[in-house]
């Protein structure tokens, strides 16, 4: 893991930060909604604060439907936000980003079979981007395309080939080369290996790690695989129903999780070294509620083993404690002092 160099050289403004970002999707008839005075919108992302440091690898984990991918699209500028602010290098960007701003954040998608244009050669994909964004002088475009392919570990001859001629792992390399062609500061990878075979996953994960070290990229890795996250990332943000419920440096989050959801998530990971599950109850029961009906108060309380009266009434803020710098959790009891009644509730749970 390369944690040390990221924090040291961090300048004042983060390359990418979000404050109070929300993305809502209208659902059903908005006229009826207004007449009946109800809320017919899906709160996919519901007030997210997040900051990615320069050269940092930040992981975003959570179950499907937690809003991870919608947040990624919003950060990338592909999805307009309903409220909140996204800043690039400390400068707020609006709904329509300038060409220069669009280059700063690039994305690698999950499925390399559908994210590449089947009618364009690999070289065609790269040339188009390099020309439109004037990344290099016109005469150098061909050479730059080849350089990019070498960078991601593909032969230079790949320029003339079509995506269908490549395997899944190679296509994902092409997708990474495409993202890197604009020389972004932040690379967002949305489940980059979950469509690939195990033995191929390793090559892509190693590639992402080495690119980050070589190019000083900031990386936002979206994944549901906590083992992958532990390998690649310095910091982890856990998302639940559109909001970040805990964020901490990787090892701290995994060794000392403070939010009950994070604890459940960690307990649910199948592990190689641990045998068959004991007869006990699952780490967490039930399904996550629909984002159309987010519970009032704490949104996790319907599945929380230690939920109290207070959780129904108050929505907990993402806060930290002095003894654990950089560790934030959105639970009333996350940093409750030892020996209080609630700390005991933990022990029992």
């Amino acid at each position, binding site marked *: 893991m390369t944690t040390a160099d990221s924090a040291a050289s961090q300048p004042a403004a983060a390359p990418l930060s979000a404050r109070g970002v929300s993305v809502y999707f209208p659902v059903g008839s908005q006229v009826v909604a207004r007449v009946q005075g109800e809320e017919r919108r899906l709160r996919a992302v519901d007030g997210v604060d997040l900051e990615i440091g320069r050269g940092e690898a930040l992981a975003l984990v959570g*179950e499907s439907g937690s809003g991870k991918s919608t947040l990624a699209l919003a950060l990338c500028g592909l999805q307009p936000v309903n409220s909140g602010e996204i800043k690039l290098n400390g400068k707020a960007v609006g709904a329509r980003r300038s060409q220069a701003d669009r280059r700063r954040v690039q994305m690698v998608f999950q499925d390399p079979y559908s994210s590449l244009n089947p009618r364009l050669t690999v070289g065609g994909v790269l040339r188009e981007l390099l020309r439109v964004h004037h990344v290099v002088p016109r005469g150098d475009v061909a050479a730059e395309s080849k350089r990019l392919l070498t960078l991601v570990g593909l032969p230079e001859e790949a320029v003339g080939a079509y995506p269908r001629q490549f395997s899944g792992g190679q296509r994902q390399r092409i997708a990474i080369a495409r993202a890197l062609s604009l020389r972004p500061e932040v690379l967002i990878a949305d489940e980059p290996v979950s469509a690939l*075979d195990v033995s191929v*996953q*390793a090559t892509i994960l190693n590639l992402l790690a080495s690119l980050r070290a070589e190019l000083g990229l900031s990386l936002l890795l979206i994944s549901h695989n906590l083992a*992958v996250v*532990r*390998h690649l990332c310095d910091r982890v943000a856990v998302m639940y129903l559109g909001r970040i419920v805990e964020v901490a440096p990787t090892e701290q989050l995994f060794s000392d999780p403070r939010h009950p959801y994070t604890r459940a998530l960690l*307990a649910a990971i199948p592990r*190689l070294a641990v045998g*068959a599950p004991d007869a006990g109850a699952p780490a967490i029961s039930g399904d996550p509620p629909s984002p159309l009906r987010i519970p009032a108060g704490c949104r996790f309380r319907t599945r929380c083993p230690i939920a109290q009266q207070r959780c129904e009434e108050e929505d907990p803020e993402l806060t930290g404690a002095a003894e654990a710098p950089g560790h934030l959790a959105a639970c009333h009891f996350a940093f409750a002092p030892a020996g209080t009644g609630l700390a005991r509730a933990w022990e029992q749970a």
Partner: protein
Amino acid sequence: MTAPEESQPAAPRQARAGGGPAGTVLEVRDLHVRIASRQGTVRAVDGVSFDVSPGEALGLVGESGSGKSMTLRAVLGVLPPEARVTSGEILLDGVNLVAQTQNELNRIRGTKMSMIFQEPMSALNPVMRVGWQIAEGPQVNLGFSRAKAAERALELMRRVGIPDPERRFRAYPHEFSGGMRQRVMIAIALSCDPEVILCDEPTTALDVTIQDQILRLLARLCRESGVSLVFVTHDLPVVAQICQRVSVMYGGQLVESGAVSDVLLDPRHPYTLGLVRSAPDFDYVRESLIPIPGAPPSLITPPPGCRFHPRCEFAEEDCRVSETPLRLLPGGRATACLHYERVLDAVAADRAQS
């Protein structure tokens, strides 16, 4: 590290690993499946043998194209039209399924053997109430009356943990979450009290917390009702959670089998070692992952000798020429590697590092 074990005289490929209880429910002997394609004949499954004892969960792991799903489909008798079992036996309670007619197979499939698929939404009937989908099996196969079958469906829904079964009985699959749909699939699989349930990546499409729930449910059912599982997956930690024994497939053949903790933590075949090394492990963070070089072999013209030799770091001259049948090792294990002692050294070196 233990010294390399004395390997017993080479046994034929049907070498049986693991000394489970004498009674076996399902026994697959030297199974071959060929698929006709325009490029040539694909040797999808090439001499696979395994057996399953009552109440046991056997894992079948490998990458895509290793033949694990084809093996499962052959056992259930639902191969795609261009695929055929060319030789071998599939014995369920001593009855060879390969020799059965469609009608006889249908009867066996309903009552003795069932399957859970990866994608519950596409395996369930979208326009039929889930309760009746669960009740269908007992009605058709066991001759239950409508009322009695409905009662059985309700009981099954309770058993697999579907809350409020009386109301959910009348719901359609689209009204269920992914985890609940998979519970419905499990209820359907259990509906006629089968002896074996074949599971094809049943938790791959689910979230990790839901996967945990489903795995625990399956483990509990195995324990309570003595049903056996054949569990196909590419996810090694999942195998560690649910199975007692595991067989690793590569290029249509078995390359290693044995008790789960032995095989996954102390492999005896370079491919198993490669799988373990390339998958990020939550409890053991490596400096960098070690991918398996190269690509899986073509099953139309598989490499001669050991099918893994072109990608193997330990390969010798004899690996290129001689066939590599599964050989029995002490401790109820088996490996197809001619030079498995070298894997031992690599495992020991890995362990010293961690």
